[in-house]
């Protein structure tokens, strides 16, 4: 091959390399940027007075006097709205029967939307569900609700051959000439005074329990549940994995039985996680009955089984990579085999073993399928440590799925779902960084 062709090929290859790195970075940005941006929205947002009232009443937080003062201010701003509604109800309506029924229906819609926006009408009994006790706690959501109050979403079906076209009709039109008409302009102009939005940093989002099935509050039980599941899974998986790896490398030899065992372990690593989930349900819960209901214990045992092959394989590689001279030196100094493994080989293989543990930990924290049937629930209290042997827990991975698909008010609590996603990503990242640092320090120490 001519030198020029070789150079050209070389350059084009490195160009290709740069391109793929650039592509990877871009896709990482495309994935991570929204996760960060939207996820932060769960904790950092424009909080309204309703948010501060909720925090005070449910969590006893905030400066009571200040919030009371703000509430007075807000009540004054909201009073005309309620007055207008009351006045409209009193007003004689010279309408035909059909129109009156129509009007009453439109009125009820307005009232419902006002209640959704501002919270229950004054003088009414306090609703039982917390979601109905407060108005909009987030400014962005309040503006969406305002849009729904101001405009009716109607569809123009005049062309039957096409799908209807969305048209926004000002709701005001339905109440032209009545005492309710000024309400819409008033609400639009006085939104700020009625809500007093302020930038809120709700860092306790990570630790608070959820209120009313994730409508309000934080994700404390989920974070705790994920930590319990991950740590307990590792407690089961690490000793088993390392001991198995030591046995396979140092003691087992190379018979065909052991070969078969190795193949089995490798293929176990490729089994889909849902299969582990069903196995966990059938074995730990239905056959062994290790707990009466789903429990963290059953879930973490299942997760441990899931990550075990990874731990074994990677630890095996790490132990195998320890130079033979180490073993020979230890043996020549009179150490027994067991002593050699414990004092020489394991410390030397530790960085590699740690890597395997880190990778598995990230996987255990993020897996959903193995815990669906064994440990995860959509609503539950944060558990005390000893309760983990008998009780199920909410967990981030499962609750993200649950909120995205099963929750009755998906669109209203999107921010909580995003917050969970970000928390999970950060949690895994944190685990990885800790282990990378730990690994670096150990390697440094080993090198002396």
């Amino acid at each position, binding site marked *: 091959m001519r030198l020029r062709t070789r150079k050209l090929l070389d350059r084009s290859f490195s160009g290709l390399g740069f391109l793929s790195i650039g592509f990877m970075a871009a896709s990482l940005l495309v994935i991570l940027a929204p996760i960060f941006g939207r996820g932060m929205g769960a904790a950092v947002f424009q909080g309204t007075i309703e948010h501060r009232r909720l925090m005070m009443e449910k969590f006893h937080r905030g400066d009571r006097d200040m919030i009371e003062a703000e509430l007075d201010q807000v009540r004054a701003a909201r009073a005309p709205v309620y007055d207008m509604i009351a006045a409209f109800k009193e007003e004689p309506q010279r309408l035909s029967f059909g129109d009156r029924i129509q009007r009453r229906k439109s009125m009820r819609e307005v009232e419902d939307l006002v209640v959704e926006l501002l919270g229950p009408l004054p003088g009414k009994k306090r*609703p*039982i*569900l*917390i979601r*109905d006790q407060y108005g909009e706690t987030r400014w962005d959501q309040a503006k969406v609700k305002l849009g*729904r109050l101001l405009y009716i*979403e109607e*569809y123009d*079906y005049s062309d*039957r*051959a*096409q*799908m*209807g*076209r*969305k048209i926004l009709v000002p709701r005001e039109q339905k109440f032209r000439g009545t005492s309710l008409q000024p309400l819409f302009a008033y609400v639009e102009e006085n939104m700020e005074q009625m809500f007093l939005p302020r930038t809120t940093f709700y860092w306790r989002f990570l630790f608070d329990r959820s*209120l*009313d*099935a994730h409508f309000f509050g934080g994700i404390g039980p989920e974070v705790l549940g994920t930590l319990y599941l991950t740590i307990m899974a590792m407690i089961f998986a690490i000793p088993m994995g390392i001991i198995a790896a030591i046995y396979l490398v140092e003691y087992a030899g190379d018979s065909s039985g052991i070969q078969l065992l190795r193949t089995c372990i490798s293929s176990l690593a490729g089994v889909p996680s849902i299969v582990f989930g069903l196995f966990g349900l059938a074995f730990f*819960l*239905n056959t062994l*009955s290790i707990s*009466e*209901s*789903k429990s963290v214990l059953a879930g973490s045992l299942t997760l441990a089984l899931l990550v075990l092959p990874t731990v074994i394989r990677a630890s095996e590689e790490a132990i195998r990579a320890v130079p033979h001279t180490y073993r020979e030196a230890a043996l020549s100094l009179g150490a027994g085999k067991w002593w050699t493994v414990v004092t020489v080989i394991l410390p030397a293989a530790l960085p590699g073993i740690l890597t395997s543990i880190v990778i598995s930990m990230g996987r255990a924290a993020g897996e959903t399928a193995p815990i*669906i*049937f064994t440990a*995860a*629930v*959509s*609503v*539950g*209290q944060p*558990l*005390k*440590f*000893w*309760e983990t*042997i*008998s*009780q*199920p*827990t909410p967990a981030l991975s499962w609750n993200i799925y*649950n909120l995205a*698909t*099963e*929750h*009755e*008010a*998906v*669109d209203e609590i999107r921010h909580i779902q995003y917050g969970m996603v970000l928390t999970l990503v950060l949690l895994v990242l944190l685990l990885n960084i800790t282990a990378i640092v730990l690994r670096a320090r150990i390697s440094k120490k080993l090198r002396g």
Partner: protein
Amino acid sequence: MNWKLLSIIGLSFVLIGSAVADERIAIDGSTTVGPIAKAFSEYYMEQNPGVNITVSESGSGNGAKSLINGTCDIADMSRFMKDKEFNAAVEAGVFPVAHVVAMDGIAVLVHPSNPISGLSVEQVRDIYLGTVTNWKELGGPNKKIIAISRDTNSGTYETFAKLVMNKQKMAASVEYVGSNGGARQRVQTTPAAIGYVGLGFIDHTVKPLKINGIEPTMLTVSSGTYPISRPLFMFTNGYPELGGHLHALVTLHLSPNGQEIIEAIGFVPVTSY
């Protein structure tokens, strides 16, 4: 010395664990009844601190299985137990007792841009049988119908199959979705879709169709005029011990507060205070 200390600590954990374990209730099952169960447990835990109620939503079929295996205390179901399940339960020494907590209608949903506003039961059946495949045939635009159904593990599916499909098999082109929320989401994002969910899952992003000319509302469901209505159940193993937390929870719907919760979520209460 150390071992003694450790074993004492371990033992005390187990003891505390078993003491706390009495105060817990596991609920599993239907995604339709899920919102009721979640709201009830939230309300109940606020009234009775120290009780831990966990709610999972995995479908009526799984709820029944969990009750039979003894892994849950209350099985939420949006249909009655099947013969097979009942037999399996009795064989396992579990005696299912049904508590009807609310009534529900199955609303047939379309995208709000769809000009169709009502269908007959037969027309809905034809769509899911695959004999009607285009909205044009029903007086709508020329668009292929995308039929969304709940998965076969779901009680909503069973009810739909019985009341609408007459137990005839759905077409192969029908898409199956694992939850009520998922079915609504699919319809809300797909203009040509049709789907069905429980009454509590209707919101302003989708349009519920009139069935045989009757709108699915709390009124038409409670009066029995809406053709696709059904009771929602909570099943327990035997009638729960009177005065216990379990009993209080499965009879909560009979109290004024329970009724208010059910109404607030959008289902039809069985009581009228």
